[in-house]
């Protein structure tokens, strides 16, 4: 009847995931390269005219970040599910929702944070500058954790199912859309000179809302999946 404290358990979960990521550095690299390549496809397809690129920049970069998050959701729980670590996590005598936050956090550090750090460079590539560049980074900083959290619900619901990659996308994209609208809208409104506070605060609201509910919903979905 030894029991880890909440912070011990949380730290243990996060530390294990980050340690795994360091062993498989390709995971981090994959997110980064995906975003770079896909973002580069658009100037190649649309043409290099700066004015056009600047117009599509917010949408393109946001959709790319969204797709990168979507593609990495498979990594969130599946490996743990297959080797039995997930059922052990369910048996840790601490609230599962808190441990799930730990998993979401490490997932974001591995797949979301590199995108955020890379976004200024990509923004420059698309002709953004100054304030809009800063708004882009900030919107992604608020948005990518939100996407990780919402995506975790979908990942937990479809755990172990055949064709789960596509199914996760179908389940989770409707819930991603508001985040996309506010995030890209923040950059667009900053470019238009309107001011991005409205969109950014709505984005912040989405973040808070998902922090309040997504871990709990994910925990419920995980218990259902492991029955």
């Amino acid at each position, binding site marked *: 009847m*030894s029991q*880890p404290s909440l912070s011990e*358990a949380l730290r*243990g979960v996060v530390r294990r995931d980050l340690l795994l990521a360091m062993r498989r550095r390709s995971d981090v690299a994959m997110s980064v390269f995906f975003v770079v390549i896909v973002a580069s496809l658009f100037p190649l397809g649309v043409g290099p005219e700066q004015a056009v690129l600047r117009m599509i920049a917010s949408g393109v970069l946001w959709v790319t970040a969204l797709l990168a998050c979507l593609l990495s959701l498979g990594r969130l729980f599946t490996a743990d599910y297959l*080797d039995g670590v997930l059922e052990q996590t369910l*048996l840790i*005598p601490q609230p599962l929702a808190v441990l799930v936050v730990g998993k979401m956090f490490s997932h974001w550090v591995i797949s979301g944070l590199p995108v955020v750090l890379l976004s200024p460079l990509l923004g420059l590539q698309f002709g953004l500058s100054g304030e809009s560049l800063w708004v882009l980074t900030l919107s992604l900083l608020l948005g990518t954790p939100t996407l990780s959290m919402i995506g975790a619900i979908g990942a937990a619901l479809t755990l172990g199912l055949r064709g789960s990659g596509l199914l996760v996308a179908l389940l989770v994209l409707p819930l991603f859309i508001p985040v996309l609208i506010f995030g890209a809208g923040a950059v667009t409104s900053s470019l238009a000179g309107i001011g991005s506070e409205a969109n950014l605060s709505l984005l912040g609201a989405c973040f808070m809302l998902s922090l309040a509910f997504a871990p709990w919903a994910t925990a419920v979905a995980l218990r259902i999946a492991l029955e």
Partner: protein
Amino acid sequence: MYETSGDVEKTFANRTTLKSSTLRQFFFFGPSGISPNMFQTVALSGSRGERQLFSDVSVTVKPGTLLAVVGENGSGKTSFLRMLCGLLSPDKGMILWQEKDIRQLKELYTAQLTYIGHLNGIKDELTPVENLNVSACLAGDESSGEIVQKALEAVGLGRSVHRLPTRVLSQGQKRRVALARLWLSTRPLWLLDEPFASLDTAATSYLTQRLQVHLSSGGMVVVATHQEIALPTDSVQYLRLTR
């Protein structure tokens, strides 16, 4: 209450086992000592999908005994064990820990058990030492480097494999890494699903010895198994799951 400090024999010296969590639970459960009705199921029925697995299973596991759940493949042994963990909900009936429903107790109950299922619950990319460190940390057990290494040695893994990534080990070696948690565990109830599978004779005897030590300190074990367990017959009871 599960009495520690002096009653539990550990394979390695200098391990303090009385922690503050123990004191908390002492006051919660009362100084009643080890109750004979520590762990029991009452009229437990389970099914998987539309298939009825077993019904009306009532069994009591007394401290110091091992319950061996036997049956052919597909008879519901794994589902039974998962119900005892709380991972699966039974169709009917309940499971009592110290005469309280485990669904009420939730985390207070899972803090009392160590479960090792079919899947090993270890990460292939980490070394056995790292895996055990994490498991111990997440179980609230002490996990200094020496203790972990001794646990791995106790289960028959020499120091040469301690720092290799687990994926290069054989199936049997991985199973031993998974089972090494039992040498670190201070929890009274052990739920093991086919622990002897993939083990050679040496490892089987190590595990049996460890189970014996655990039982003689008043612990309880529930094992799903095909094999005979070489333990004194008065500490083993058998349960055959019937539809």
